[in-house]
């Protein structure tokens, strides 16, 4: 039994332009102590999936399916029960830490807040633990700084501290390296890995960067146009991908010579019939535009392609 089991999760949004199908029948499993990278391009629905897990979607989202954590379906919980899960069992690290931290409180206050409010720790105990944690993350002497006084990288670490202070079992990191300079990426990934190991947690990493996925993850899931196209062990997916989209995505990487994927990105309101990748697929057959491919097992996972 996996730690977190996502089954047929679909998310759609009512908009004036039409129904946006942001995620369609997404099934994923996150095992104990595992790092799973959810990879895809902008707008493929990967952030929607994690926000659905955390129940942080806006009110106009329609969510279907099940998200099972320790035998409980998170989607059926009410806001109060869910608030208990957030932070303590499942924690999330946002991209853009400088905006995610509250500008008018010191970072030590923001880290100890969860301890005080959720674990009912005394203020002094909470502050002690949070300053230990901040020191371990290399923010010694910066505990009583405000977010605007720190660099983006320091804020990123402060936010990691805020998220993991209660020792969550699952850490979700949403594009933690987006917009960072190359030198910072390795450092931030290191911090996240450390936080994961200290807590013995599992990590669900959302990223658009294949290189990041390669560095940190055990398993990779590739999303395209709201669907998971392929899941498997990291080496297999990145060395010998089974889905043509994964192949095309890898080919467009700098080290493979920036080979572009032909054609425009698909519409999420009116996604292609059948296989969603078929309009841009080099191996497209007649059947591809009619029938949605079923999941086929691969050596270490599965793929949604008829080839």
């Amino acid at each position, binding site marked *: 039994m996996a730690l977190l089991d996502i089954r047929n999760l679909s998310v759609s949004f009512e908009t004036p332009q039409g129904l946006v199908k942001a995620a369609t029948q997404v099934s994923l499993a996150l095992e104990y102590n595992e790092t799973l990278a959810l990879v895809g*391009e*902008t707008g493929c629905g990967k952030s929607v999936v994690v926000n659905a897990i955390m129940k942080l979607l806006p009110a106009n989202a329609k969510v279907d399916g099940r998200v099972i954590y320790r035998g409980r379906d998170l989607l059926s919980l009410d806001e109060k029960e869910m608030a208990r899960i957030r932070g303590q069992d499942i924690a999330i690290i946002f991209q853009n830490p400088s905006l995610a931290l509250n500008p008018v409180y010191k970072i030590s206050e923001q880290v100890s807040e969860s301890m005080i409010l959720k674990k009912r720790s005394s203020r002094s105990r909470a502050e002690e633990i949070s300053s230990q944690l901040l020191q371990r993350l290399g923010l010694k002497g910066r505990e009583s700084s405000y977010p605007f006084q720190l660099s983006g990288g320091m804020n990123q670490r402060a936010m990691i501290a805020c998220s993991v202070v209660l020792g969550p079992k699952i850490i979700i990191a949403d594009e933690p390296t987006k917009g960072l*300079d*190359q*030198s910072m990426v390795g450092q931030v990934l290191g911090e996240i890995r450390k936080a994961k190991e200290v807590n013995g947690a599992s990590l669900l990493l959302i990223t*658009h960067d*294949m290189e990041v996925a390669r560095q940190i993850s055990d398993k990779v899931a590739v999303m395209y146009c709201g669907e998971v196209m392929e899941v498997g062990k990291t080496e297999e997916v990145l060395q010998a991908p089974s889905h043509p989209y994964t192949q*095309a*995505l890898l080919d*467009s*990487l*700098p*080290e493979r*010579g*920036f*080979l*572009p*994927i032909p054609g*425009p*990105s698909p519409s999420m309101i009116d996604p292609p019939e059948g296989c969603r990748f078929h309009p841009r697929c080099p191996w497209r057959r007649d059947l591809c535009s009619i029938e949605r491919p079923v999941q086929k097992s691969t050596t270490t996972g599965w793929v949604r392609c008829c080839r």
Partner: protein
Amino acid sequence: MRLCSENVSMSYRTGYFGKRSTILEGANLEILPGRTLGLVGGSGSGKTTLGKVLAGLERPSEGRVLFGGRDIWKMEARDFRLFRRKVQMVFQDPEGSLNPMKSIERSIQEVLSLLKVPKRDWHERTLDMLQTVGLSEELLGRRPSQVSGGQNQRIALGRVLLLEPEIIILDEPTSALDISVQAQVLHLLRELQRERGMGYLLITHSAQVVSFMAHDIAVIERGRLV
């Protein structure tokens, strides 16, 4: 004609009594027709400011910018207008590179009217341009918010190409785009260079993009070229 900067420095004063903060210091660069100069630097290194100075959008506090050997800030109005046309700049933010209140078609026609192209040729020229950057006609009626980031960036590029520039300064043209789209745009840029022999200054933080595109590389750190 080539574009170069000689000992360009840039500093601002914050407020009346604020300290002068230096953004650029003694930068020398040369952009040649048909070649791409990659300018690499981290965030806050002053690379965008240098780009704007070279495009004549900001006046350096010290040093000169030379186009075809002549100081652009000492040119007569007519020559400066010519310089404006021949040296163009494309910006990072793909969603902000076109006016959100105007349709794509109007954004393009605006440039045509600036160039005093007769009205009857507008449609044809517009279609030509779209073809050059690999887009279809159906986009014309839309607003920038209704097309993708990559398409916006192509239109911005196409608009600039209407002016038939000799040199284009590209400020992180692909860094906000997805990997696959980035690849499309970079290929397009290379192709255009081959066809038209334009010179590029490619400003980016990505070493990989530079090594793919550039003939020469300059590195900038805290306002200094190293």
